[in-house]
């Protein structure tokens, strides 16, 4: 009974690092389903395996066993062409905006590379107009920034350029790996709003990796809670927050300070 809306799914995905006594099972037999247009958060503390799972979904890391299905079909990543095809559909934003740019090149290079990846041959004028459109989407002025170097921009601006890159590529799925954890609290909302705009305007599916359960609640439709390599609870964001079932989820919510509820510091 296939669910036609499922764009990405995993069955028995496992990833082991090392061998013998030092063996670490970062991702332990994980099953998941993500539907088109959903914002799904994978929430876990450090060591939970969420980053490893994200890298596997992204195709940067190979799983030890298990399979991943994209659009119902088994995902192939063997040849360069296979990978290229996959990355036309699945893209990412990373945690550290400073490390995401090559400091030796102007920031427009990041956007020009998008045109190459899409395989389109555009004139210079067409390329510039697309870049301008992408910058507009993230409220940045193309004329002011296109020929600046990364160190001349702030962290928030760099992260917005990364979002404009996603806007240009228009992938089906965006893996956002803690995109706001290195951004000032006051600039966070901008990034989050833009991500939601991407989903609203182009029906982009977003997989949001975070350790902040409050953030996941604010942003997403569904939440997967990960502990020690396993998804211990999954469901609608609203349900998980108001009615957590798994003891780890209960403890996780308990450990987070709230505004209006008391915090038992005993």
């Amino acid at each position, binding site marked *: 009974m296939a669910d036609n809306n499922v764009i990405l799914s995993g069955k028995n995905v496992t990833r082991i690092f090392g061998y013998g006594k030092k063996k670490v099972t970062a991702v332990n037999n994980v099953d998941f389903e993500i539907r088109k247009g959903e914002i799904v958060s994978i929430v876990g503390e450090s060591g939970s395996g969420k980053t490893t799972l994200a890298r596997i979904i992204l195709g940067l890391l190979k799983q030890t066993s298990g399979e991943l299905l994209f659009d119902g079909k088994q995902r192939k990543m063997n040849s360069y062409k296979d990978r290229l095809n996959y990355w036309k559909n699945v893209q990412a934003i*990373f945690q550290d905006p400073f*490390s995401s740019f090559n400091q030796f090149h102007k920031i427009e290079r990041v956007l020009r590379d998008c045109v*190459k990846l899409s395989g389109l041959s555009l004139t210079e004028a067409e390329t510039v107009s697309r870049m301008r459109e992408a910058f507009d989407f993230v409220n940045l002025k193309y004329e002011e920034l296109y020929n600046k170097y990364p160190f001349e921009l702030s962290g928030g601006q760099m992260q917005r350029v990364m979002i404009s890159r996603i806007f240009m590529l228009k992938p089906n799925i965006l893996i956002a790996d803690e995109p706001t954890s290195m951004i000032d609290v006051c600039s966070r909302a901008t990034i989050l709003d833009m991500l939601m705009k991407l989903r609203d305007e182009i029906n982009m599916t977003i997989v949001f990796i975070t350790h902040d359960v409050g953030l996941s609640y604010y942003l997403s439709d569904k939440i997967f809670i990960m502990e020690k390599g396993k998804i211990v609870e999954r469901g609608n964001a609203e349900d998980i927050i108001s009615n957590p079932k798994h003891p780890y989820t209960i403890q996780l919510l308990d450990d987070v300070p709230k505004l209006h509820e008391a915090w038992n510091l005993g």
Partner: protein
Amino acid sequence: MYYVNVLLKSHKFVIGAFVLVSIVLLAILYPFINTADPKDLVAMAFEPPREGLILGTDNFGRDVFLQLAHGTRTSIFVGLLAGIVATSIGLVLGLISGYIGGLIDDVITTFTNMFIVIPSFIILIVISVSLDVRSATLVSLIIGFTTWPWTARAVRAQTASLRNREHVNIAKISGYTTPRIIVSEILPYMASYVVMAFVLQIAAGILAEAGISMLGLGPHDTISLGVLMQWALLYEAPATGAWWAFVPAALFIAAISFSLNYMNSGMDEIFNPKIRGN
């Protein structure tokens, strides 16, 4: 150009460069002033320095100062060529093993370790002995092919740490091929490091040549600083008290080596973020 300006602020770099450039200029320009053949006999054997003979004569009666200039030329040439060969090999092997990892890394590392374990000097001696004719070029190549492991290991370590940067991942998911990633995302971040490695390899090359020549296994029919030292020892210049026949050569070897290392130290202060923090 920005980098040159910054380097000029480092005292160590400037001092080292000054010493090096002075020696190199002397070696290049003096033979134009004195166009005689350094192998010509000009006076009696072991004549002390006097007017017209700045450093006197060697055991055959040849002009020591002229020999010093020619010898320095050869030594620096050997150092440069050996440095280029060693750095190139080390760079390529280090980049490949550091970036790709896995089995290729294991193979290259084992290969590198083999070279490290056997003292390069011994290999140098063995190869030199088995060859009948040794030119300066050949000696440079031999030195280059035996001293690359140090650079390979250093480059590998740097590459392995650089490949975890997010812009490398962004390049991957943007469809960059592996060679392109190595050249555009990894190499530029190592540029200063590679330059420093190159400088040290030159110094190592010059010292290696001096050592091998002193043993009599240096280039044939060529004057180099090491060969000068060898002649001095063979023909008992120290015993005769003719210090001018070997002390200047030794001093030049030391000075070139020192200046290169000092320049490297200056560059390290500028480029190494860990030291810069203070």
